[in-house]
C-alpha cells in the first residue's frame, strides 16, 4: 500500500477521465451525457483513491509523507518530487471532495459545450491536487499557474454577460503576482542551488535577500488570497463565473494564497516574515472591517458572499502570522472550513439562480414558504459563515483569534469586530431572501431541492458539522508539521529582535 504512487494517482487520474471524454464521439446529446457520467466517475474515483491519504497519513510525522521522487531535468537539478505533510494533505482532500460536488452541481445548469466544460474541471483537479503535492519549485509553479487556464476558460466561456471583463481582470491580477513570484522562485533556485522545497524550507537565506524574495512572493499570494486592496477581482470573477466555477474559486483557489504563506513565506523566509508581520496584520484587519461593511451594502447575492470571503480569508493571514500553534492551526482550519462553507453558499445561490436566473437579492423573498428544506440548509451554512459554535466556522475563527490575542491583542480585538459585522450581513441576506411573505409572482411556482441537489449538499453538511463538533480529526493531522514550523519561526523571532535590520 505504501509503495503505491498514490499522489501521482490522485493527481493524474482526472486526466484519464479527460482522455475518455475526448474519445467520445457521436450525437451531441449523447456526448454531453457521457461526458457528465465519465467526469463524475473519474472525480469520484479520484476522491476514493485520495481517501488512502486520509487513512494512511501518519499524524506523528512532521516530515513529508507518500514521497515520490524521479529525475525530471537532472542537468538543472529539477525533479518530479511529490509529497504531503500535515499542512498540505487536507487541501488535497478538500480539492478531491469539491470537484465531484461541482460536477454534480453542473449536471443540469450547463447545457452548452458540456464536453469541454467537464474536461476543464478535470484538468483543474489535476492542477489543484498537483499544486498541493508538488515539492519542486518549478513543478509547483507549473501547477500553480496551470490552474489559471481552466479557470480562465470556465469564467470566459460559461460565465455571465460581463464574463470577458471579469476573466481578464482575474487573469491580469493573478498574472501580475505570478510574474513576481516566478522571479522570486528563480532567485531562490539560483541562490540555494536547489529547487527542492523540503531542502529550501530549512535553507537560511540572507536576511537582506529575504526581504525582496518575501515581497515578490507576497505579491502573488496576496492577490490569490485575496488581501485588501488587491481583492477587487474576486467579486467580479464570482459574479460572472458559473456556480461551479465560483465553488472552486472560493473553495480551493483562494487557499493558494494561505498555502503559499505557510509553505513558502513563513518557513523559507522566516526573518522577513517576522519583519513584515505588522504589514500583514494591518492589511488583514482593514480587510475584515472594510469588506464586511462593503458586504453589508451589496444587492447581489454572489457579490455579498464574495466580499464575505475576503473578510474570512483575512482571518487566515492573521492566524498564520500570529506564528503560534493556535493561530496557524486555526488558519488552516479556517481555510478548510471556508472551503466548504463558501462553496456551499455559492451552491445555495446557484440553486435559486438555476430556477429564477437572477442573483439580485431584491428578486427574492419568502422562499421558506415554497422551499423549507432549502431554507434549512441555507440556515446551517449561514450559521457556519457567522461562526456559530458547533459549526466549522467557529473553530477556525476562534483558534485564529486565540493565536492573535497572544501575539497582539489589538489585532485580535479589531479582527473580532468581524464577528459582529459578519453576523449582520449574513442575517440580513438570509432575511431578505428566505423570510417574509411570498408575494412575487415569479417565485410562486419555485420548487424545493431536488434529490440531486440534496446529494450535492449532503457531504458539505456532514463536513461542516463534523469539523465543528469534533475538529480533532483534522487538527491532529496538523499538529506535528505546525509545531515544526512554529519552532523555526520562534528562532527567527529571536533573531530579528536582535538584528539591526528590523524594519519595525
Amino acid at each position, binding site marked *: 500500500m505504501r509503495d503505491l504512487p498514490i499522489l501521482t494517482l490522485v493527481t493524474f487520474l482526472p486526466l484519464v477521465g479527460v482522455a475518455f471524454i475526448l474519445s467520445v464521439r457521436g450525437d451531441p446529446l449523447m456526448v454531453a451525457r457521457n461526458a457528465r457520467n465519465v467526469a463524475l466517475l473519474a472525480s469520484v474515483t479520484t476522491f476514493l483513491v485520495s481517501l488512502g491519504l486520509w487513512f494512511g497519513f501518519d499524524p506523528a510525522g512532521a516530515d513529508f509523507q507518500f514521497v515520490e521522487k524521479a529525475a525530471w531535468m537532472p542537468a538543472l537539478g529539477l525533479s518530479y518530487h511529490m509529497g504531503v505533510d500535515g499542512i498540505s494533505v487536507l487541501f488535497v482532500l478538500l480539492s478531491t471532495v469539491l470537484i465531484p460536488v461541482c460536477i454534480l452541481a453542473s449536471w443540469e445548469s450547463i447545457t452548452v459545450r458540456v464536453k469541454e466544460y467537464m474536461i476543464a474541471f478535470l484538468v483543474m483537479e489535476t492542477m489543484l491536487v498537483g499544486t498541493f503535492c508538488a515539492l519542486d519549485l518549478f513543478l509547483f509553479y507549473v501547477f500553480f499557474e496551470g490552474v489559471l487556464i481552466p479557470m480562465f476558460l470556465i469564467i470566459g466561456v460559461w460565465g455571465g454577460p460581463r464574463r470577458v471583463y471579469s476573466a481578464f481582470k482575474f487573469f491580469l491580477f493573478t498574472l501580475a503576482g505570478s510574474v513576481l513570484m516566478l522571479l522570486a522562485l528563480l532567485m531562490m533556485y539560483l541562490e540555494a542551488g536547489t529547487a527542492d522545497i523540503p531542502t529550501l524550507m530549512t535553507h537560511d537565506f540572507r536576511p537582506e535577500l529575504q526581504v525582496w524574495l518575501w515581497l515578490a512572493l507576497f505579491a502573488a499570494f496576496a492577490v490569490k488570497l485575496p488581501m485588501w486592496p488587491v481583492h477587487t*477581482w474576486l467579486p467580479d470573477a464570482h459574479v460572472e463565473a458559473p456556480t461551479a466555477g465560483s465553488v472552486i474559486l472560493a473553495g480551493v483557489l483562494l487557499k493558494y494564497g494561505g498555502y503559499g504563506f505557510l509553505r513558502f513565506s513563513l518557513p523559507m523566509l522566516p526573518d522577513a516574515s517576522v519583519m513584515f508581520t505588522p504589514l500583514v496584520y494591518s492589511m488583514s484587519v482593514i480587510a475584515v472591517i472594510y469588506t464586511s461593511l462593503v458586504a*453589508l451594502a*451589496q444587492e447581489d447575492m454572489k457579490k455579498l458572499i464574495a466580499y464575505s470571503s475576503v473578510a474570512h480569508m483575512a482571518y487566515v493571514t492573521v492566524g498564520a502570522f500570529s506564528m503560534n500553534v*493556535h493561530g496557524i492551526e486555526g488558519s488552516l482550519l479556517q481555510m478548510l472550513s471556508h472551503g466548504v462553507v463558501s462553496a456551499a453558499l455559492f451552491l445555495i445561490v446557484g440553486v435559486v439562480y438555476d430556477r429564477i436566473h437572477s442573483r439580485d437579492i431584491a428578486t427574492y423573498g419568502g422562499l421558506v414558504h415554497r422551499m423549507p428544506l432549502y431554507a434549512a440548509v441555507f440556515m446551517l451554512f449561514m450559521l457556519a459563515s457567522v461562526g456559530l459554535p458547533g459549526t466549522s466556522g467557529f473553530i477556525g475563527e476562534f483558534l485564529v483569534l486565540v493565536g492573535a490575542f497572544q501575539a497582539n491583542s489589538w489585532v485580535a480585538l479589531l479582527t473580532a469586530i468581524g464577528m459582529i459585522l459578519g453576523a449582520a450581513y449574513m*442575517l440580513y441576506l438570509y432575511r431578505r431572501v428566505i423570510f417574509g411573505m411570498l408575494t412575487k409572482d415569479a417565485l410562486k411556482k419555485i420548487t424545493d431541492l431536488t434529490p440531486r441537489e440534496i446529494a450535492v449538499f449532503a457531504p458539505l453538511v456532514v463536513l461542516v458539522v463534523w469539523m465543528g463538533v469534533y475538529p480533532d480529526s483534522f487538527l491532529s493531522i496538523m499538529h506535528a508539521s505546525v509545531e515544526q514550523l512554529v519552532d523555526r519561526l520562534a528562532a527567527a523571532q529571536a533573531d530579528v529582535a536582535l538584528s539591526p535590520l528590523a524594519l519595525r
Partner: protein
Amino acid sequence: MVVGVVFLPLLGAFVVGMLALLQRGNGEAAGHGHGHGHGHEGGHGHGHEKSRTDSLAQVLSCGALLLSMLLAILVFFDVVGGGNAHTVELMTWIDSGLFEVSWALKVDTLSAVMMVVVTVVSAMVHVYSVGYMHHDTSIPRFMAYLNLFTFFMLMLVTADNLVQMFFGWEGVGLASYLLIGFWYDRPSANAAAIKAFLVNRVGDFGFTLGLFGTFVLFDSVQFDTIFAAAPAHADARIHLFSADFHALTIISLLLFVGAMGKSAQLGLHTWLPDAMEGPTPVSALIHAATMVTAGVFMVARLSPLFEQSDTALAVVTLIGASTAVFAATVGCVQNDIKRVIAYSTCSQLGYMFFACGVSAYSAGIFHLMTHAFFKALLFLGAGSVIHAMSDEQDMRKMGGIWRMVPVTYVLMWIGSLALAGIWPFAGYFSKDIVLESAFAAGTGVGQIAFWAGLGAAFLTAFYSWRLLLMTFHGTPRGDEVVMARVHESPVVMLAPMAVLAVGAVAAGYVGYESFVGHDLAHFWGSAIQVLPAHPTLENAHHVPGWVKLAPLVVGISGIALAYVLYSAAPQIPALLAARFRGLYQFLLNKWYFDELYDAVFVRPAFRLGRSLWKGGDGAVIDGVGPDGIAAATVRIARDAGRLQSGYIFHYAFAMLIGIVVLVSWYLFIGGR
C-alpha cells in the same frame, strides 16, 4: 443521568425537526396534487396527516422534556442530598497546542439548580404551547425550536469550561433568534430577531476577548483549573491593548460585557423589549425565566474570578442597580402588556446582578430561581389573556374581563404578588435578601444599589398593579366582537400555569434556608466561592429592622398608588402625562436608546459600506489599479499602433534609432 437530561431535548429537537421538514415537504406534494386536479381527497388526506404529525411532534417534544425534567430533579437530589458533585467527560472538542477543551458536563449545586429551573419551566412551557399554538400552521417546527433551545441552555449551565459555555451561550442566542422570528411573515418579527442576535453578538465580542484573556493568564479555560489558580493570580498584571491592567479586573469586565448582552443590562438591553415579537410561550421561557438569566449564572459561576476584583464587582453592582431603576421607569408607561413584563424582567435581572456585585451570589441565584417561576407565570398569564382577547396585546383595549377569565385572573394575581414582593409569596423572600445584602455590603455602591433597588421595588409594585387593573378591571375597552369571544383558556394551558403558581407561592419559603439561610454552606458546597473578606450574606441577616421592613412598605405603597391612579381616579394619569409631557415622552420612547443606536451605529454602517464599495473599491482601487492600467495600456497601444504606419521609411528610421541606442549602450558599457 445528566447526559439524559441534556441530550434528550437534542434528540427531541432532531426528530421533531425532521417531522417539521417532512410535513412541509408533504404539504408541497399535496399542493401539487391539488393543482393537478386530484382535488378534494388529496387536500383532505393532507389535513388529516398534518394534524397527526402535529400531535406526534407535541407528544415527542413534551415527552422528551418531561423525562428530562424528572431526571434533572433526580440529579438535583443526588447532588444536594448525596453530595455527588462530579463532571462527566464526553469527548475531546478542541485540542491545539496548549488550548485543550472537552465536551463535558459539570454537575454541582449551581448547575443542578439551574437544570431544575430550566427543565421545569421549559416542560411547563412545552405543555402550555400545545394549547397556545393550537391554530398555528408550523407546530412541529415550533416544538423542535423549543427542544433545541432547552438543549443549548442545559449545555450552557453544565459547561465545565468557558468555550462550552460560549457554545451554549451562542446556541441559546440562535434559538432565541429563530423563535423571535418564528412568524417570519412579519417584518417586525424578522427585524427583532436580527436585532436580538446582533446586540448579543456585541456582548459576545466582550465574552470572547475575556475568554482569550483568561487563556493567556491561566493557560487554560477549564473552570476547575482557573478557579484553583485564581487566588495565586490575585495581583497579576496583564498587558492588553497597549496598557497595563489588573488581570482579573479586565478579564472579569470583558466577560461581564457578554453577560450584559445576554441579560439585557443597561446599554445592551434594547433587544429584549423587541423580542416580544416572538410567540408568548417563548417570551416566558427564553426572555424571562432562562436565557436572559444566563448572564447572572455566568457571574455566579465565575465567582472565584469576580471575587478577586473589587472594581469588577463595583461595576456589576452599578450596572445592575441602574438597570433595575431604568427598566422599571420605562415599564410604568408602556401600554403593550408583554412589553411591561419585558421591562420588568430587565429590571429584575438588575436586582440579580447587584446581588452578585455585592458578593451575595447565592441571593442572586435565589432571586433568579423564584423569578423564573413567577415571571414565567406572568408571561403565560399574559399569553392566556392575549389568547382570550383574540391576539390583542394593547392594554388600552382591554379591561373588565376578570369575570370571564377567572382562573387566569387569580394566577396573574399570584404572579404579581410574588413579583411585588408581598409576604408570603416567593418574591418577598428573594427580593428582601437581595436588598438586605446590598445594604449589608457596607460599601458605597452597595448603598446606591440598596436605594435604587428600593425605588425600583416601589415602581415594580406600581406597574404590576397598573397592569392588573388595566387588563382585568374598569370598563371593557375591547370592541364587541372581541369581547363576545373572550373565553377562559383550556386546561392544557392552565395546568402548567398552576404548576408555576405553586412555585411562585412556595419557592421562596421552601428555598430560603438552603439558598441563603443557615444551610447555605452545606447546600452550595464549592459551587460558589466567596472571599472571607466579603461576608455580605452573613451580615444581611443582621441589618436594622427598618431595612427588613422597607421593601414590603414600598411594595404596598406602589400598589396603593396604582389603585388610586387606575381605579379610584382614572383621569389622573392622562393629566400627569399632559403636565409632564417631556418626561412622559422620554419614558414612553424608552430613553431614546433605539434612536441613538440607529443614528450612531446602524445607519453609518450601511452608509460607510456603500461608500467604501463605490468609492474605495470602485473609484480608488479599480480606478487606479486594473482599470487605470488597462486604460493606460490601451492608450499606449493606440500610440504604438500609430507607429505601424506601413511606410518603409518609418520602420527604417525606427531601426536606425535602435541601432544608435544599442551601439551607444555597448560603447558606454564597454568603455568603462
